[in-house]
Structures are given as C-alpha cells and as structure tokens.
C-alpha cells in the first residue's frame, strides 16, 4: 500500500533508508551512510533539532491531529492545560496573521498569549473572558 506523506504541508517522497526503532517512537535511519534520528513528539517528528509536522494518508495514526499545525486548512487552537481565559483578542470573521495574539490564558500562575499558528480567518471563538477551561478545550478555530 503506497501512502502519501506530507511534511510541513508539502508531499514528500519518503527516504529509502535503513530504519531501526531504538525506543518508543524513536527511529534511527541511515541514508547513504548518513545517520539520522527521528523522534515522534506529539503531533510532529523532531529530526536534527527541527520540528516537522508530518501527515500520513492513513487516518488511523497520523491523520487528523496533524492538520492542526499544517500550513493550510483548519487550525483548532486548544488549551493544553486547565486555565482561565483572561482576554480574548479576536472575533469571528476577523483576519489574523501567523503569530498574531488570539487570546490570553492564565495557568500555573503565568499569563500566556495564545498565537495563531498561521494566516487565516477566525471561524469560531468558543470561550469568553474569565471562563475557566479544561485541558484540551477548543478555544478558537482559524481557517484559511
């Protein structure tokens, strides 16, 4: 079964290296004698200090979630930890650029600005200011 793989949104022909699993989610890959180590971390693969978002066509393993950080499509911003929304800086329909602050969450005694991962339009704002959110809550959806 030939499966398409996208790396940072672009289709990529997989290498034909010698792959060995050397730990949970850790692969040692030799390509023409060059040594690589690829670590699956959350929704990305880390290789040589760089973090790449990788989508495999097969939806069972690496689909879905991957989309969230890819360069186009639908980005769902979620809260990674429980916290309190202290400020919402966007509204539905608003255009945002990559890196633009979207809202501020307070957690672990720190205020943290959640930024848009890319350019797009806000299609949903699911929280209001002063609301307490659980880990994994959908906060804002950006499409573009």
């Amino acid at each position, binding site marked *: 079964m030939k499966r398409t793989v996208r790396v940072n949104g672009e289709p990529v022909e*997989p*290498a034909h290296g010698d792959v060995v699993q*050397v730990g949970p989610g850790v692969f040692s890959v030799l390509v023409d004698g060059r040594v690589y180590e690829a670590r699956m971390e*959350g929704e990305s693969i880390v290789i040589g200090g*760089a973090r790449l978002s990788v989508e*495999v066509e097969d939806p069972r393993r690496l689909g879905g979630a991957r989309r969230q950080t890819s360069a186009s499509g639908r980005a769902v911003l979620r809260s990674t930890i429980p916290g309190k929304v202290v400020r919402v800086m966007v509204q539905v329909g608003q255009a945002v650029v990559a890196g633009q602050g979207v809202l501020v969450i307070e*957690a*672990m005694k720190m205020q943290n600005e959640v930024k848009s991962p890319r350019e797009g339009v806000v299609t949903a704002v699911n929280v209001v200011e002063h609301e307490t959110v659980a880990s994994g809550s959908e906060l804002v959806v950006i499409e573009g």
Partner: protein
Amino acid sequence: MFRKVLIANRGEIAVRIARALREMEIASVAVYSDVDRASLHVRRCDEAVHIGAAPSRESYLHIERILEAARRTGAEAIHPGYGFLSENADFAAACEAASIVFIGPPSDAIRKMGSKTAARRIAAAAGTPIVPGAEEGLRDAGEAARVARECGYPVMLKAVAGGGGKGMRRVDTPGDLAMAFETASSEAAGAFGDAAVYIEKLIEQPRHIEIQIIGDQHGNMLHLGERECSIQRRHQKVLEECPSALMTHMPELRERMGQAAISAARAAGYYNAGTVEFLVDARGAFYFLEMNTRLQVEHPVTELVTGVDLVRWQIEIAAGGRLPLRQEQVRWNGAAIECRVYAEDPEQGFFPSPGRITHLTEPAGPGVRLDSGVYSGWHVPLEYDPMLAKLAVWAETRNAAAQRAIWALGEYHVGGIETNLRLFPGILRDPAFREGRLHTGFLDEYMARRLAPVITEEAAAVAAQAALAGAAPPAPAIGETRRESGWRRSGRESLLR
C-alpha cells in the same frame, strides 16, 4: 552532625539535597503533597511524610505541617531548598522557636534582606553601590533636575504608583528633563490617579550578575565568584554561566564585586549561603539589586567551577562547622553553563506543558551534570513550577562548554510533553552569545532575530520514512525476518513488562 534532616521542598532541588544527605550519611525525610507521592524526591529519601493537598499553601507552604513532620520523624534540621518557604523569615523563626535547625541564614537576616528597600539601605550603608536615584516622589522639575544631575544621565523617570511602562520616560540630557517630567507626571496621574514620579539612573543594557557568598557562624565569610544570569525571559533566568565573560576583560571585577557582596551580607548579620544580585553596566560599574537569602537554582555552575559542594557546606555550617577554605584558596577553573529545562513550549509563547513523560533519554558523559527531578512515566503536575531539570556542563573554556552543552542537549529527549530544550542550541550558537555580549534584554532580542532551523530535503524525506515506520501496524508477535524487526518486536515486549 545531624542524624536526620527534613527537606521542605520537592522536585530537582529536593533530590539534590537528598543526595547530599546520603553522601553525608544523614537520614533524609521527604515531605509530599497529594500529587507528589510518586515524585522522584520521595523515592530518593529515607523517609517520607504526607503533608497535605496539592496547592502549595496546603502543603509546601504550610509551616505548621512541615514542623509537625519534622517533630514526628525526629528530624533535627530542615533544608528549605529554594522557593516555597526558603526566604520566609517566619518559617525560619518558627524553626528556631521549635529548636529545629533551619539550614540557612538566621531569620533576622532573612527579614532584613527580605524587604527590597531595607536591603537597599543596608547595602548602601555598608558601602555597596546601589542604583542611584530617589525612591520617593519628586516635588517638581527642579528637584528632578537636581537628583538627575546626582545620578548622571541617562536617567529614568518612573511612576511611584506605577508599573507596566505607564509614566516611564527615559531622559538623556538635562535639556529634556523638564518636559519629560511633566509628561510622565500627567501620564502617571491618568493611569494610577497619582502624579508622583521618581528618578533612577538608567543602566543601559545591564548585565544581571550575582555573587555567591557563604559564611559560617564563627564570623568567617567568603565569596565564590559570580554567575552571569543575564539571559532571562520576564525576569525568569533561562541560562546561567560561571564565569561571566565580562570578568575575562576585567579580571579585578570579581574580587571587587565579591567584597561588596560580603560587605552587604555582613551588614545584615548573615551566615550560610546567600546570593547578592547586581546590575552591571558595560564598563563594569555594578549596583546592588537584592539579596537572595537561600541556595540559588543555578548554584551548580559555581560548584562546577570552584569544586565546592554548596549544599554540603550549607549543612555543615548549619551544624556549627567552619568554612574549610580561606578566600585566597578559592580557585575558579574552566567554564560552566546551565540550561533550565522547563515543561513549556517556546513556540507557543512558553505556555506550560504539564503531563505524562512517556519517554526520557537524559544526556551524560564528560563534563555533563544533570540535576533532574523527573523520570520516565512520571506525570508533571500542573500545580507547581514547571522546571523539570537543570542541565549544566563544564569544560576547560567557555566555547568548549557551549559546544558541550549543544551535544548534551542533542542527546536529551523528553517525550509526551513539550519542553524548552530546543530553545538552547540556537542561543548557544548565537554569535552575540559566543562573544559574551550579554544583557538582560538579550533573550528578547535573540527571540526576535533567531532563524528557524534549516530543514534539508533529505531530513524531510527521513521524517516521512520514520512517520511511515511509526504508523506501520505492529510487527507480528512471533517470527523474525531480520534482526531489526525482531528488535522492534522485542523492544515492545520489553516495555510491556
């Protein structure tokens, strides 16, 4: 010497202290909250006492419960670590009242140095330079001009009631002062309902450099040199070094700052370990900032360079011991750099990332020291500071230490949660860092100018191949076609044990 010591802390520093106690053959008592039963510091102690719920005020900040744990286990002394109760004068006093030795300075010294304004006054009286200026509001532009002249330009006008930049004005020349004073006053009035502003000398691109001092209860005190702590984010230190690159240009500065730190500490009746923080300008002029009356997070860089075991010395001093060295016997060898490893995502505004550590590979080898408070399978709780570990390296030179830190970081892998590990290699390779051109604004500037890591076509192809390998259905449970696939199967099995 004590037979038993309670550690009123958690995380890596509690593990650090437990190791020192093991080394000294002193029994160690851990305390733990509801979420810390399985924490590493509990596993590394001889005894453990549950002291309450997860929120710090019900456990690690609860003075009475900690004293009760000490009494119940027969601990003769308490080491507070850093954070939590370590700079709480009431806690130190309560220990004294309960005849339990507080491993740190006397409560009186904590109290004196705990107030920033009192500390400033004590330091100034002891002859330690402080940032020139007036802490009280200025009557008018005329008084402002007089104070500014005393401080020397440039100066900052700051709102007495203020914060967040409102009512702040930089003034570079006397001619600009009157206008700036009026603007700052009206801005302050508008923002805070109080027009009062004061003046402070502006230290341009200051370094944050601190001096480690340590004194015994017999009147001996020495300094162990400086730590360069200018790489900060929101006043949170991120990477620290010893020595400071500044000292290589100004070899006499260490001793001058060291003596200034000792003077300030002596004036407060200090003993045990403490740290005096300074702002230092590019010409080596230094100004007392505050004193931390406890062990510092970044103490390992001093230990690596001087060979002194600060925690051991703290315990020995608390037990009445004398400093084993005189000032002239202290030596600084090589260079050490520490990276603070946090469960936070540098790509998402350093958002905290608690959760389960699903995989952990820790660096080791020549010159590598790791002070970690976590292990594979452990859940990083969201109730406390998200620092996981401190990776410190030592090498003969600063450049070699930076290179060493880079490979050590490359070997470090924390799976399951986000960490700031990938932030450091870029800093360590940054030309301004390598040249030692540091100041407290360094990290913000670096974050703005840093480049995304280069992703080669081959790396992308390897990532694609690894993704396919990771997405492949598990190998059959029996039968190996080649060694590698057998490894994969067995690796999985072994992890199931």
